[in-house]
């Protein structure tokens, strides 16, 4: 007994070791965030000095953040990000939920074919489709508009898939009862299925918004006007064209771009982890 506990204690990481290692790796992980915030509140003199301190001798945050908000149209970028992400999400739910309901609860010729199409759609990396989608956008005359940023994503195979999986767990009796109450199929989708599948809707919303808020590839291809750029593209242009070596405002701008998702994540960690991993491993 005593031999057992001793070797247990020897081989299982003790609480102290566990905390020591995890605090160390955690600190390393946070270094880029801390450095970014630190530079964003330092005056140029201290940034280019050789001091090591996190907190500046002279607090220069107000100047840097004002510069980031005025010299780069940062509020505009954030607004664009919100418009694009919100529209994409709304359209995705609008188109995916009815389709997922049909796949989960209705019997019809071609259902397996349709589900196969959804699975193939899941398989395709979006960047591969960018050239034909760019040509399509050009033909439609919508390049360099909000529509260009939105249209490739109005339907999400992942959304259909996720909703279908969730809808299948809702008992058929619920659907029968709703029909007996005289609800149309469409009303069943929006008044019964979607509210009951709220966890899936939230998980998908997080997945979608995070993905599109952070996306650089597609906006880079279809948008030229600064007034239309979402945050990642905007901040890249700010870095290349204006800020250059003006690190303070650049870091302030980066901090502001990262901040909304980080706050949302810390506030709803469980939901974010679920949304981002797609309920992959049960």
């Amino acid at each position, binding site marked *: 007994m005593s031999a057992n506990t001793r070797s247990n204690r020897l081989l299982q990481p003790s609480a102290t070791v566990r905390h020591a290692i995890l605090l160390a790796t955690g600190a390393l992980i946070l270094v*880029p965030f801390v450095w970014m915030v630190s530079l964003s509140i330092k005056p140029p003199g201290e940034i280019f000095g050789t001091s090591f301190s996190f907190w500046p001798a002279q607090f220069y945050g107000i100047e840097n953040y004002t510069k980031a908000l005025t010299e780069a149209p940062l509020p505009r970028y954030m607004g664009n990000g919100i418009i694009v992400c919100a529209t994409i999400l709304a359209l995705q739910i609008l188109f995916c939920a009815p389709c997922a309901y049909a796949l989960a609860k209705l019997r019809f010729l071609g259902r397996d074919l349709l589900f196969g199409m959804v699975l193939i759609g899941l398989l395709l990396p979006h960047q591969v489709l960018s050239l034909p989608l760019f040509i399509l956008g050009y033909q439609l005359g919508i390049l360099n508009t909000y529509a260009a940023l939105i249209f490739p994503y109005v339907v999400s195979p992942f959304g259909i898939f996720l909703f279908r999986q969730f809808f299948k767990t809702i008992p058929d009796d619920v659907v029968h009862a709703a029909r007996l109450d005289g609800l149309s199929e469409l009303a069943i989708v929006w008044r019964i299925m979607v509210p009951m599948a709220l966890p899936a809707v939230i998980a998908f919303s997080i997945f979608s918004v995070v993905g599109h808020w952070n996306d650089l590839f597609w906006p880079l291809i279809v948008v030229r006007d600064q007034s239309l750029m979402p945050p990642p593209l905007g901040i890249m242009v700010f870095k290349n064209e204006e800020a250059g070596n003006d690190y303070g405002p650049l870091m302030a701008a980066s901090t502001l771009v990262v901040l909304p998702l980080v706050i949302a994540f810390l506030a709803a960690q469980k939901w974010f982890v679920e949304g981002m991993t797609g309920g992959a491993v049960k």
Partner: protein
Amino acid sequence: MSEPLALSSASGEPSATGSVRTLPSPASPTRRRAFTEALAAWTLAGPAVFFLLVLFFLPVIGIFVIALSDWQFGVRSFSFVGLANFREVFADPGFRTSLLNTVAYVLIVVPGTVVLGLLIALLIESGKSCRSFYRAIHFLPFMATLTAMAIAWEALLHPTIGLVNQTLAAIGLPTANWLRDENTALPVLAAIGIWQNLGYAMVLFLAGMKSIPQDLYDAADVDGADLWLDRMRTVTLPMLGPVSMFVVIVLAVRAFECFDTVKVLTRGGPGHASEVLLYTLYRESFEYLRTGYGAAVAVVFLAIVVTLTLVQAGVLDRKVHYQ
């Protein structure tokens, strides 16, 4: 982003046709009922089907057509040229460098991320306190806008004022111009890739550990596996096998899709030292407007990603009975 994951759960489940359903009530005239149901289904699915066809299937066909033809932006003529574009791509030393760089990047990022993610997950799971705190910290980079964080990394890696070089100099180690040196650019980008993804691997492993039944640990106890290491060796790690396979493939796909850091930090340079497939695809298609070349690169990229995902689906299908 993490879309390929969904396939795994699809394969584990009985197919739609095999499932028992009771929807059409037996009293109703069945044929008419079936027709209304099919009509309703296709009406509900209609918009999604339309957009799936236009935004996914048409473009896939399109990319193959462009890859096999001499079509250019703004040119009306169009003829099939067979595999000429692919021959050009594979004869181009620039593309071969890009492909090799991408493979090297994946071979650093995937093992690094899996090992670190697994170790951190094991450590977090080995105690009860502060679990969600540690999970949150390590997961944070996966959420954060990579373009903005790349800019923060550039400041960290700055040759003179960057924290990395200042620290190295302070403890007497050699410094480097990390992003401008062709020996360090790609490894540094890979390190950023590991930094970004290890929290993702961690949460997948944590979820995998949660699903290991307690009975197995009890059985291991009865069999004399008292030591923590023994329990790891006989229960935890073997039971994580399928999850690990899944994590490896998902991370490999994500690593193959590396683009943001390259675009922001190195633009493929110095020389071609950090050029990766998606960056080549982007530059050839949209900066040089070499559509045939760009489309051929896209097809190669598609082939790699689809193969990886199918391997995953196949392996997981076979391992479903593991538990």
